[in-house]
């Protein structure tokens, strides 16, 4: 069960529309390392997770990613508000506009639609936590790349916040991996899969 709070986790106040920036930031909505995939990854993995601390982390990070999905959507909404047809044509936003107008739809910057292929839920704690740590770093790299491509401080501010959260999540998943390994035979973490095998 989830309850909606009518506020953003971090404020988004963009004064100047910028469809060119929207085209690239869109990747953090529905791209391979975006917030939709992030939330679905953790919220899917948690059901078979045997350790309560790790189930907690997957639930709470997965929930925070939904808040980040809303922040990225708010950025996209504000970047594409009140656009003229001239701005849409000149920025190259026309390829998106023809299918979605200025509606928010999750896809990568390349136009590839969101797909669950971009995340894993392998049903194995060691495998999934390595996936999660890598995912946080991939998202951090993507935010770094966005920061290389935009210069509006109104965009940079919330993007830097989201980038910082990837680092905190990476840290918490690293601790989760340590907790999982402490539960397993320290001589061989890979002897069994505690999400499946009875031991």
């Amino acid at each position, binding site marked *: 069960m989830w309850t909606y709070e009518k506020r953003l*986790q971090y404020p988004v106040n963009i004064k100047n529309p910028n469809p060119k920036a929207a085209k690239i930031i869109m990747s953090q909505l529905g791209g391979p390392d975006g917030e939709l995939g992030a939330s679905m990854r953790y919220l899917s993995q948690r059901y078979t997770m045997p350790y309560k601390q790790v189930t*907690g982390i997957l639930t709470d990070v997965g929930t925070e990613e939904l808040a980040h999905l*809303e922040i990225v959507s708010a950025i996209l909404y504000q970047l594409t508000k009140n656009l003229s047809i001239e701005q849409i044509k000149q920025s190259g936003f026309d390829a998106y506009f023809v299918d979605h107008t200025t509606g928010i739809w999750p896809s990568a910057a390349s136009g590839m639609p969101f797909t669950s292929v971009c995340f894993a839920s392998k049903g194995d704690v060691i495998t999934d936590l390595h996936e999660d740590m890598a995912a946080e770093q991939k998202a951090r790299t993507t935010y770094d790349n966005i920061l290389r491509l935009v210069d509006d401080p109104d965009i940079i501010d919330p993007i830097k916040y989201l980038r910082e959260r990837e680092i*905190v999540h990476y840290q918490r998943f690293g601790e989760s991996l340590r907790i999982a390994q402490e539960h397993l035979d320290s001589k061989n973490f890979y002897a069994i899969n505690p999400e499946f095998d009875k031991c």
Partner: protein
Amino acid sequence: MCNEREALMKKLMQANFVLDDMRLYLDTHPCDEEGIKIFEAARMQRDEFLMEYEAKFGPVLADNGVTNGQWNWIEKPWPWQNEV
């Protein structure tokens, strides 16, 4: 446009952020007594700011969506509509 609503929302966001961050920390450090104190202090602050914000500027939670017998939940702007 630095008004009272924005200032109070900022306080609410800050208290909530402490909760968001500490929630994750406590998941992997459930026995950290200092962490639990920080979490509880932030929760009390959050509750105070939330009550004050909702009384002055309308519902943040749909459960508090009725104001003076009216469904007020849908009347105030949505968070992405921030007009600067």
